[in-house]
């Protein structure tokens, strides 16, 4: 079947080519030809004659941002540092990934929305980061792998003065230490 369809297509295109060529032949015209743009000519990459097996990729996860291999930030409700059900579900997954890469350390950054005072938000940010660390430790992540820093409201992820911006900024963010 496949061979037949290919043959048919070839036959049809040949026929079309003959028809077009015949049409041109009847009335010769002066045709201004535009040379094809040079840039379209791309050298074909030469295929390896003997494909050697590529070396197994060695990814150093410590060089990657944690977000690049599935570790996600968690978000908090207004003015609290307790973990929501959704946050715990994310941390369950994060802990599994972290335990697959026991040589990698993490910086857990605590962040707040802009409402409230500078110092209190720095304290609240730390409290959030520490509640994340405590939960991860309870899931078997070694405490020595997790360092905490609070940026309070100083380092917002989203600019803006509405609930969507605030919600995006109330988070614990995972970074390279």
């Amino acid at each position, binding site marked *: 079947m496949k061979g037949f369809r290919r043959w048919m297509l070839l036959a049809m295109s040949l026929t079309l080519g003959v028809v077009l060529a015949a049409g041109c032949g009847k009335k010769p015209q002066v045709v201004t030809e535009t040379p094809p743009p040079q840039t379209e000519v791309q050298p074909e990459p030469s295929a390896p004659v003997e494909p050697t097996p590529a070396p197994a990729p060695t990814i150093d996860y410590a060089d990657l941002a944690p977000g690049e291999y599935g570790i996600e930030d968690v978000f908090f409700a207004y003015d609290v540092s307790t973990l929501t059900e959704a946050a715990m579900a994310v941390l369950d997954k994060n802990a599994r990934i972290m335990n697959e890469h026991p040589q990698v350390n993490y910086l857990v950054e605590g962040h707040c929305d802009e*409402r*409230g*005072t*500078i*110092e*209190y938000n720095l304290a609240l940010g730390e409290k959030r980061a520490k509640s994340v660390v405590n939960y991860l430790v309870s899931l078997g992540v070694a405490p020595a792998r997790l*360092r905490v820093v609070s940026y309070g409201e100083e380092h917002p992820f989203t600019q803006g003065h509405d609930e969507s911006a605030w919600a995006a900024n109330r988070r614990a963010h995972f970074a390279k230490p």
Partner: protein
Amino acid sequence: MRRISPAISHAALALVPIALLLCTQAHAQSDVVLQAEQTATRKLDIRVDRVAAPAGGAAAAADLVGRVIVADLRNSGFFRVGGALAGEGEDLPFSFAITGELAGDPPATGGGGAPSLTLRLQAMPGGEMVLGKRYAPASGQLRATAHHFVDEIVRLLTGESGVNLTRIVFSRGQGDRRDLWVVDYDGENLARLTANRTLNLCPSWSPDGQHIAFTSYAAGQQGVFLLETKSGKVRRVIAAAGLNLGPVWHPQQQELLLSLSKDGDPEIYRIDLQGRVLRRLTMSPAIEIGPDWSPNGRDLVFTSDRTGSPQLYVMDGDGAARSRLTYEGEYNDAGVWSPNGEQVAYVTRIGNRTFLVLISSGGENRRLLTDESWRHAEDPSWAPDGRHLVFSSDRSGVFKLYVLDVVDGTWRQLTAGREEDITPSWSR
């Protein structure tokens, strides 16, 4: 009032008046102070005349002196200012007038002749001289000279220390970079103090103006650092694990009060300038931050959320005798004790806005100092006169610094620009 080390900006302040002219202060002073006391809430009408000077560079210098005097008098809150330089009519029944002359080569021209600036305060309508000063200002000292003269006037007429030679240090920047900057009390001589590409926050002047303590992320985590104002040198005091937050100076001793979370949650500590803990003052599973000494160095106000929301408390310097200061509102923080010890200014959050509040140190007479128009009003710091607060507000869309007169409610914008200015500290 102690003066600030001159080295940060070029305005050196060797302001010893070289002669006191025809001093009639002895009897005039008591009368005048009495008069000022009677009009504590009413402003004194004062006329500022042009400072006389020969034409040329001296005229420009004399004009500068006059304008600084007008601004200082207005900023003090005690005066209504008239006269040609104030842009107001001369028909007020002035109580006082300021006159003066600039002679010799003005400092700006770098000429060889010794400049001499004579300034007088005269009681009106008679014109008797109440205060007379002759200065020999060096290059770059004209502003400081005018500031000094108005400080003398304020002290003479009101009995209060002037703030014209004080400065404000603050944090300016955006995102993960904020640097410390310093500016004169009137918004002049803005200068940057740090450039370390990280977050520098919560600066606090030492009482003698020689050092600024601040929180910085210079080592990737918070630490407390000390900047020597004369040399610009910075050294680390402490970088304990966790928060090293909001250092403030003891009013008399060489030690800092701050919040450390090295043992879990933030607690308040007294440390020496080498970072050694002198005393831990709080011990609770709550957030305890934002301490500030009373001016006598015996008690301190601080924030704790031990009840579930941040509130202000007072305790003594050993951590004993705690009492709660604020009950109204669900979020009270950033308490700062007024220089006379009678009041505490702080920040309260109502809805999504923050407001400045004033309360007596006994917890009575609570009143809001700012309204909705200020959007978020935060980070109050007292001027040494106990009358003015510098604070941050995003009323313009971006946080800038403002100075509020808590007696008459007038205010002025201190800093401008697109970057955020926060956590100011007013020098003593």
